[in-house]
């Protein structure tokens, strides 16, 4: 019985590796690079895909496949300008982008060390922008697109929770400066240009302090 199971396992493994022989393997790319000059992703994005907060390397684990894939295409196509990631994306083939995006989308959302919650005015500004926006400037709340507590919505709206303040504020500034211009319907461009530097600092700090599981009650 045990032998039978072992044999089956071996057969399955063989069959599996055969079937995948031509298709690139997402896990391999993430851990070892693609063998054609692209560095392993984990060097920057971490073994569990949680990123590195202080360096502004984003979390990839648990983001939607379609979103991750789109970002790689956008780096390669130049609508998202970043000196570190553009060569990485350019070095990946179509199939490799698919495979590595699938790999990260299936990783569980990593354990996340909450940064300390902001206090005082910054906390108030951050929460107000996140939950309510500022409609006198036609600015919706972040969670109206990014979901309750910024957990993300579907394929097009990435989570903000589980990302560091450095990364979040880098992106908002990139939109303001036009270095990132890959957003559908110019939704984020429109948001970012309505934010002051103080707003960006406050809302980034606020999301960096949110847990990745949304609270049950809707914030007032």
């Amino acid at each position: 019985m045990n032998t039978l199971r072992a044999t089956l396992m071996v057969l399955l493994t063989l069959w599996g590796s055969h079937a995948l022989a031509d298709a690139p393997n997402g896990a391999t790319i993430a851990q070892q690079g693609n063998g054609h000059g692209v560095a392993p992703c984990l060097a920057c994005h971490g073994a569990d895909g949680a990123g590195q907060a202080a360096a502004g390397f984003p979390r990839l684990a648990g983001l939607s496949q379609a979103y991750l894939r789109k970002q790689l295409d956008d780096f390669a196509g130049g609508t998202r300008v970043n000196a570190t990631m553009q060569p990485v994306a350019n070095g990946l083939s179509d199939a490799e982008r698919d495979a590595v995006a699938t790999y990260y989308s299936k990783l569980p959302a990593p354990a996340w060390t909450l940064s300390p919650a902001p206090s005082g005015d910054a906390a108030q500004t951050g929460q107000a922008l996140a939950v309510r926006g500022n409609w006198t400037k036609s600015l919706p709340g972040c969670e109206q697109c990014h979901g309750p507590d910024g957990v993300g919505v579907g394929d097009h709206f990435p989570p903000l929770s589980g990302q560091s303040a450095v990364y979040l504020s880098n992106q908002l500034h990139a939109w303001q400066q036009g270095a990132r211009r890959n957003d559908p319907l110019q939704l984020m461009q429109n948001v970012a240009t309505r934010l002051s530097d103080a707003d960006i600092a406050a809302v980034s700090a606020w999301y960096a302090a949110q847990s990745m599981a949304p609270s049950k009650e809707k914030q007032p």
Partner: protein
Amino acid sequence: MKHMRFILLGAALSLAACDHATPQLAAPVAKNPAPATSTSKKQSAFVPPSESDIPNDDFGKQIALGRQIFIDPARYAKAYVGNQLSCENCHLDAGRLAQSAPLWGAYPMYPAYRSKNHHVNTFAERLQGCFNYSMNGKAPPLGDPVLVALETYAYWMAKGAPVGASLPGRGYPKLAKPALAPDYARGETVFKRDCALCHGDNGQGQQSAGRTVFPPLWGSQSFNWGAGMEQVNFAAGFIKANMPLGRGNTLTDQDAWDVAYFMDAHERPQDPRFTGSIQATRASYHDTPDSLYGTEVNGRMLGQGQPTD
């Protein structure tokens, strides 16, 4: 006599609560709509009190409760809600935003006479209609704590607004008739380009963590055939001023009319006033070119009230 009934019906159509037109709306909208950024400031001189000014006493508690109901009726007024929408979905910024039928624009205009039921309707009665139609639920009885809290919230928000004066920014903008008659196919193109990202390919909306983030535009979880948004003119005005979210007043008028027509040419729950026959119900409650109820679009008779989503 027959003629007379027609006129009355016409008036009734435009006066149903939260379902149809605003009584005595004095079309406050400028002829050339200003861009989104300046709209609210320029056109509405009225500024509602800030939310941080809600008093910290027993009266303030009712204001705060009314606000919570408005934002999240499925949680705070569960018994009266029959879909995934909230009041705020159509009255943005918790009912504060000009051009989004704000509560401060509505409250001072009631009581209002409605020829539909030949009597003067209080604000509370107006609110009841919202639950019947827009929320596809049932009306809380007069005096119900839900209505008391909502009315208190609206009263507080209208503080300082002149009674009986239709303020600029009230209701939704009334768009001029489009150059081309609204069209399903053109509307579908606009929908796919500017709306489906959020509201979904089939208008079903999107949820996250158990909450509606992008509300459904048609189908079983949306407003029913008695709701005001069912009328293409209201929908076009709302969409023009407020959609895509955060990008209000970026669509052309023609696009707004076309996409409103496309949205309103889909099935949704039956009109609660359904008489048993689509044609009779149309004759009684939908006899206007702005309603597609009881008309045939793309070979489908609308008003079956049995969405297949």
